[in-house]
């Protein structure tokens, strides 16, 4: 019944999709939202807990200022309106992963209202309207063991700060949802408020989806797909669900308002719970916490400290700096690389060489350590010294890569490392000429071929010279010299 997933189910369809997202971003604060437990992933179950996040009788929450500031950064970066007054509310429901019997969240006065996130979709500028952004605490994690009548509850995650970003039903395709989310993730990374590690669940998404006849203005019954934690799954789940709903309508059946679960193994969505009445969470203001207030000055200070957003950065790289689309995109998609790039070009404005060296040599080095560029601890100034050395011919680009590793292991100046390793390019013409002539005399056949006009043989001879000089020669110069000698 499902349409081919490779094809867009909306292509040539009489329907259009209406999609809204609820994105949960786990903040990377030092401590949890309402207690002093560390905010980290992966401890032994129920070890990173205290009376507050366990909800022990008598314990009280205490709001984490860092989480509120990080949230405000996100809220301002997404262009939300920020009131000068915000408060926390209790969302009351029973579930074993929720020890207090309520979740501290925000109801009618969230940190941010409205807002818009801009991004590029197939090279075109697009935007998604936000409804709101609010801050809440995460619940614990339930584990059910198949075939055994027990469930386990791990409360390490309970009380960790979670930002919920709700969009308007403003998205009309899986591709648009994917592009929006990738960009939202980048914004959070540039803000430094979350590691957005989807495998560890620090970015999760609920999807609301309905379809309607093309051009219609009303909203039809929607289904919700909960807890998607990969961009790929989100797009696939949307494709499947759009196709499923179209199929239902075509057969004259109704879409049921329900919560569905995406099964990646079978690439389908399944009903999780049947049609249900809207749950009454009995929200009311959290009396254990004082309202969150901030002055215009505080907001301005946060606003002025916001980083450049990814779309603007891409625009600057291509239009202002003249980078090609490809390297510009690669840089923007890796905030650590982009931030490092910006620091480097302040010192050395040859943007192409710098970008090239970051995207190749440096990223390779970082990848080999399974780390980000920032964790290499490399000063932009030293890195630029290396790029300069290559650009000015002090070291060949091939040998330059060999300099990188020792640079990361000592604080010695780059030129010193190059000379210690004996990697300087032979810049003395007469010394180089000697080497070239030696190679030419040892390889009469290729020399003949060159004379006969075979260009490939030049490359062979250059290669031989490079081999003789253990890579220290400038290959361009060698080729030039071979040409001169043989045409003389």
């Amino acid at each position, binding site marked *: 019944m499902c349409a081919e997933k490779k094809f867009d189910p909306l292509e040539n369809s009489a329907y259009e999709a209406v999609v809204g997202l609820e994105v949960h971003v786990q903040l990377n604060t030092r401590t949890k939202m309402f207690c002093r437990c560390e905010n980290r992933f992966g401890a032994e179950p129920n070890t990173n807990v205290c*009376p*507050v996040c*366990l*909800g*022990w*009788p*008598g*314990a*009280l*929450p*205490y*709001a984490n200022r860092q989480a509120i500031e990080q949230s405000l950064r996100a809220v301002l970066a997404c262009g939300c309106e920020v009131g000068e007054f915000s408060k926390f509310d*209790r969302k*009351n429901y*029973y579930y*074993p992963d929720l*020890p*207090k*019997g*309520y979740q501290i969240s925000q109801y009618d006065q969230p940190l941010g209202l409205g807002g818009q996130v801009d991004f590029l979709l197939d090279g075109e500028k697009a935007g998604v309207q936000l409804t709101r952004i609010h801050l809440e605490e995460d619940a614990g994690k339930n584990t059910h063991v198949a075939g055994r009548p027990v469930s386990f*509850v791990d409360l390490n995650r309970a009380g960790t700060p979670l930002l919920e970003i709700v969009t308007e039903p403003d998205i009309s395709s899986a591709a648009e949802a994917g592009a929006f989310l990738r960009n939202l993730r980048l914004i959070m990374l540039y803000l430094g408020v979350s590691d957005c590690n989807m495998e560890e669940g620090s970015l999760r998404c609920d999807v609301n989806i309905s379809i309607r006849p093309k051009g219609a203005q009303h909203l039809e019954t929607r289904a919700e797909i909960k807890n998607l934690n990969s961009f790929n799954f989100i797009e696939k789940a949307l494709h499947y669900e759009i196709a499923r709903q179209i199929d239902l309508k075509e057969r004259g059946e109704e879409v049921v308002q329900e919560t569905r679960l995406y099964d990646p193994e079978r690439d389908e969505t399944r009903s999780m719970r049947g049609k249900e009445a809207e749950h*009454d969470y*009995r*929200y*009311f203001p959290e*009396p*254990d*916490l*004082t309202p969150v207030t901030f002055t215009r000055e505080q907001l301005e200070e946060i606003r002025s400290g916001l980083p450049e957003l990814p779309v603007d950065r891409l625009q600057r790289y291509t239009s202002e700096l003249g980078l090609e689309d490809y390297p510009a995109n690669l840089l923007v998609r890796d905030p650590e690389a982009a931030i490092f790039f910006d620091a480097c070009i302040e010192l050395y404005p040859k943007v192409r060489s710098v970008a090239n060296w970051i995207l190749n040599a440096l990223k390779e080095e970082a990848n080999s350590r399974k780390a980000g560029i920032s964790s290499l601890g490399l000063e932009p100034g030293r890195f630029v010294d290396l790029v300069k050395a290559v650009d000015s011919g002090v070291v060949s680009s091939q040998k330059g890569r060999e300099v990188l590793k020792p640079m990361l292991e000592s604080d010695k100046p780059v030129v010193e490392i190059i000379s210690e390793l004996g990697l300087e390019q032979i810049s003395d013409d007469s010394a180089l000429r000697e080497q070239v002539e030696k190679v030419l005399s040892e390889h009469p056949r290729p020399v003949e071929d060159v004379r006969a006009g075979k260009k490939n043989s030049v490359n062979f001879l250059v290669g031989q010279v490079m081999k003789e000089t253990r890579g220290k020669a400038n290959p361009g110069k060698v080729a030039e010299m071979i040409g001169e000698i043989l045409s003389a």
Partner: protein
Amino acid sequence: MTKSVFDTRDSIRAGELTATAAAEDALRQVEQVNPQLDAATEILREEALAQAAELDRRLESGEDPGPLAGVPFTVKSNICTLYGRTSAASRIIENHVSPYEATAVRRLREAGAVCVAKTNLDEFGMGSSTENSSIQITKNPWKTTHVPGGSSGGAAALCSATRGMLHLGSDTGGSIRQPAAYCGVTGLKPTYGRVSRYGLLAFASSLDQIGPLQHSALECALVLEAMAGVDEMDCTSRDVEVKDYVESASRDISGMRLGIAPELFPDGVGSEVRERVEQAIEVLRGLGAEVKEVSLPNARYANPAYVLVSAAEASSNLARYDGVHFGHRTKEAEDLVALYKSSRAEGFGPEVKRRIMIGAFVLSSGYYDAFYLKALKVRKLIRKDFETALGEVDAVVCPTSPITAFPIGERMDDPMKLYAVDVLTVPANLASLPALSLPCGLSGAGLPIGMQLYGRAMEDDVVLRIANAFQSETEHHLQAPAVNAWGGGGEA
């Protein structure tokens, strides 16, 4: 043996009394009266003596273990202590031992005080008679057929019948002041935010406050001084200077302005109560206080607003007792929902269930605006009323309860009748103000009558000062109840 907390403290500091002897004496007193009163839920003999012995070692070696070194104290069973059960007098957590202690308790302990007993209460603080305890019904030491008031009835009864100890209670709608009045002792509900609530099992978070029940305002001042102050574990605690309350309470009150609000002398106030309070006001006038009438037009809506706000918060605060994480778990349940339902149905008493149901109802969509939100608006108006009145006077005087202690069982069948007892105390919680009850005489039946003082926010010292001036002039607070630990009734 009829000594004050100051005597106990000073004797120990002077080396005339060991902490162990003080603890022994306190334990003896509690053990002597408890069979008649059922006021203590647990007597912590071993733990108390061990702590006292440790204090004696430190005292002997010349250390100063703190300003309250060796002074015994008791803690209401809804306040977390490291020793003894914090059961809130509820079946649902009857054997609960807290892994941490309340900030107020910690501060007393760090000042050198020794916890000797946990005291009885109405389940989770919900009640005005201590009849809603899953453990036992506490009796009034003045007349053991009568209730001690509630919910801090255990602390009030024990305070009344013993000497030389500190008693911690909690007050959500009068739970310190009303039992203090019924048992003839002095009870202070501090300003909201004056004492940390960390470790107090929440009934209604925006109303709850820990406070002392003692034999005099000066003793209350001493306890307040030791436990007040901002706490990083409770962000509703306020960072306002902690005064030398004993010193400031000792000043005279000439020129102080007292307000009388007709709304706090409603028709329901019994004639004996009215008379005694009016006589007490005359005493205060004689001490140099000016008395004038003030108006609190919205005070008559305080009780319904209180019932709704407190129930709403309680319905959420008590959600954690679900049989999964905390509390009694039913033996068998088909599924998760059944587990929740049966555990809670078996664990909570009827009054608690009633309040949870009221609270869940008033927060439900469709009813929220008409009930909960309306109650919040009333609360705001009552706050404003007090702000205005306390702009004209330094304190407002009224009875603590319209009636005196009533016979056990009399009001259990009619919750509205029981709630009516709170009518004069709940405004202080709604308005977050300090309020104190002190004895001002006995009824014809020989039951104590309490007078109440309302002060401005964070001016706990003012109500303590007025009460102390009164107690320096009168002896109502020195009257002894029928059941007491020093033998014989009459004057102590």
